[in-house]
């Protein structure tokens, strides 16, 4: 299924500047699925009653993992089925939110496509049929480089 996306050009470079004080040419790019962008961005920009952003620090830690090429069970990991390059940003806790992504490889860049906001229905390492079906759907998404 062919999908459109929007670039988030400064996300990785801004964060890398915070980490390293210097960034010239990032080889990782972050984009967001156009159709699901509003729901995903609304979650990331969510504020508490004191007007503080709830998820931004966790999102920064997830981007750090992406920038370093790390995959781990805590923040950002590969998800089944294998070979479809589906990953998930993990916002564990009461609501157990996942932002499901698809990694695509374009010439000299790895593009992390932020594809879908999802409330994981299973706990721990178990994956329910419902979750698996969602990951399979995202695995089938096609994006242009």
């Amino acid at each position, binding site marked *: 299924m062919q999908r459109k996306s*929007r670039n*988030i*050009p*400064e*996300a990785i470079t*801004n*964060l*890398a*500047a*915070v*980490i*390293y*004080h*210097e*960034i*010239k*040419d*990032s*080889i*990782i790019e972050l984009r*967001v699925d*156009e159709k699901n*962008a*509003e729901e995903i*961005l*609304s979650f*990331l*920009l969510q504020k508490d009653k004191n007007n503080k*952003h709830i998820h*931004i*620090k*966790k*999102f*920064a*830690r997830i*981007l*750090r*993992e992406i*920038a*370093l*090429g*790390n995959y*781990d069970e*805590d*923040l950002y990991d590969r998800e089944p089925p294998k070979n479809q*390059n589906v990953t998930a940003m*993990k916002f*564990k806790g009461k609501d157990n939110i996942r932002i499901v992504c698809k*990694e695509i*490889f374009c*010439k*000299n*860049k*790895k593009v992390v496509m932020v594809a879908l906001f999802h409330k994981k229905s299973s706990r721990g390492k178990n994956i329910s049929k419902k979750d698996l079906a969602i990951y399979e759907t995202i695995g089938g998404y096609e994006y242009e480089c």
Partner: protein
Amino acid sequence: MSVKKKDKIDLMIGQLENLLNFENETERIEVKASFIQLDILDEVKKIMKEKNITRTDLAQKLNKSKSFVSQLFSGDKAINLKMVAQFQEIFNAKFIPSFKDYSEYALSKKYSKNDYVNNDDYVKNETPIFRLTDYEESKAA
């Protein structure tokens, strides 16, 4: 997609990018502190793998719950020096921090572009900022 919706998404992307600048000094330092914690825990994960120590084992040895350890690894709970001392005991290894110039760790220098040509060929080539080195190795140095 309507122009109005596109404008709204552009605005939200701009807000997100601005937030990731962490211009507020207190927040920036907090985020940097959480990244230092993740640097340390990356080393903890490596040594756990080497020594075949599970998270359940680690939780028991730290006298904490498995959920606490999970929150520690995701940066939701903060690490302290007492815990680093406990890591040294658990792993029988010395924790050796060091300061390096930022330029040595710029992302542009950490990977070659070929690393991301495709998933299978991906090879990570990074120098850790913190290392947990065996006592014998540190003594020899």
